[in-house]
């Protein structure tokens, strides 16, 4: 009974239109508390906006309900470069001033849309033997541009970019992603509730992984890739297990 009441109460609180206003590619500055407490603590003094040397923190407009005046990072326009200046300036602790390194930041997590990403399309074409795009393009911009290379984004099979849980959500990959008009990689803000889109991407990656497991021998490109793996000499690559089942549960 009590649980049901608390659930109802929490549900009412979470449906507060002034809080929990999540959106894809729309993040709080690094070190921000959870969205609810952030909205409580932020006094809209705009100091983080003033101090940002890259102009990546922007001020929310009047059209965003009571969010007006609060800071946002739109990684499609300008990503956060983790200079760690804004959180030292916050007077109320809405941005945690104890963070010192960029690695500790969790603004969100990057999710790759496998229907748009060139590498995944290429891999699928190789796998099925049918060219869907008519071209064979490989890019790997997100991997190169990531500030924590080989930690936050790992190249599986040396062509498939996969985001690990070390992703800080800084959004540099989103800013630099060449896919148009929709970005192939986008950031979902930290604490974003289970969303249709998020579930969709999670499901896609799961399906894709299962397909690959089933048709292991039938793959044409797979053997080629394995041969390519043998040629590679960098033993320093970290071992990464692409655990698709846990990936879905995290959301």
């Amino acid at each position, binding site marked *: 009974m009590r649980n049901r009441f608390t659930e109802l109460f929490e549900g009412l609180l979470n449906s*507060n239109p002034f809080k929990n206003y999540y959106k894809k590619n729309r993040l709080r500055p690094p070190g921000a508390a959870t969205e609810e407490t952030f909205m409580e603590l*932020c*006094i*809209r003094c705009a100091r983080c906006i*003033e101090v940002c040397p890259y102009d990546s923190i922007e001020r929310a407009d009047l059209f965003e309900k009571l969010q*007006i005046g609060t800071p946002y990072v739109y990684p499609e326009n300008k990503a956060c470069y983790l200079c760690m200046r804004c959180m030292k*300036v916050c*007077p109320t602790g809405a941005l945690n001033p104890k963070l010192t390194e960029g690695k500790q930041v969790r603004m969100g997590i990057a999710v790759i849309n496998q229907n748009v990403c060139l590498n995944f399309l290429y891999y699928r074409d190789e796998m099925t033997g049918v060219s869907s795009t008519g071209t064979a393009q490989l890019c790997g911009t997100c991997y190169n541009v990531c500030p924590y290379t080989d930690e936050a984004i790992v190249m599986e099979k040396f062509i498939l970019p996969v985001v690990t849980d070390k992703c800080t959500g800084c959004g540099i990959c989103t800013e630099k992603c060449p896919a148009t008009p929709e970005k192939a990689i986008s950031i979902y803000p930290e604490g974003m509730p289970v969303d249709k889109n998020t579930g969709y991407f999670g499901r896609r990656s799961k399906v894709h992984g299962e397909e690959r497991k089933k048709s292991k021998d039938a793959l044409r490109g797979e053997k080629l890739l394995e041969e390519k793996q043998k040629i590679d000499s960098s033993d320093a690559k970290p071992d990464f297990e692409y655990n698709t089942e846990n990936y879905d549960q995290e959301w």
Partner: protein
Amino acid sequence: MKIKRYRRTAQILTVFAIFFIPVLNVFELYFIKGTFISMDIGDAAMADPLAVFQSMIAAGRVNEYMLGSVVIPIVLMLLLGRVWCSWFCPYYLCAEFMSWLRRKLKMKAYKPKFAENIHIKQSKVRYIFLFAGLVLMAIAGVPILNLISAPGIISTQAMVLVKFHYVTFELVFVAVLLLLELFYFRFWCRFFCPTGTFLSFFRSKRGMTVRKVRTECSNCMSCVRSCPMMINPMTMGETSHCNNCGDCVDACPDNKKEDTLKFTFK
């Protein structure tokens, strides 16, 4: 030298600072940073006590960053009275400009006649407005009183103008207030401004106050006429309405012969 001249200098310097601090920050000089909702000078953090109080209520917790940023303004307030409003607030300067404009246009504004109990009426309206705002804020769970803090809006808009080269719709709110200022004498500062109301809680009688030092004076009432907060400076200097602007000290004709109405510390 008249106090008003010092005060005007301080006000114009603050308006200059509003635009100059973001310029410094654009050139990556971070010694002074912030807006009038909160500001850093070196390592000393200062924040609007009302803004911090709101986030304390909304979050239901206190941390050391909040307390640290409130100390300097409150100590200043206890020592010097509510000088923030009359000596530094950019909105106050605009309101004074509007009353000057009204005099130039020869308009008649609604200025009630002085009565001894006017401060009770004023404080009723002020406290009810602040309390209602705080209740609304607690329901929304968001510090919304910052959205109607006129000095905060002016300084953040100046920052946005310097850094991003645009101005948002919030400035219309301040413009409307200033237009109404033409018809109702100093109504925002006297009755509504939540920042000023909250700051007046920190007024101590030990700090700088206007007092009638001499027992006798010519009773010309020029100090009462000059007071922008519509109180009697001779008796009500210690109340929370007085913001130590010093207009009454300037206006007093007896001060030329002998000290009558003065800023005193106790």
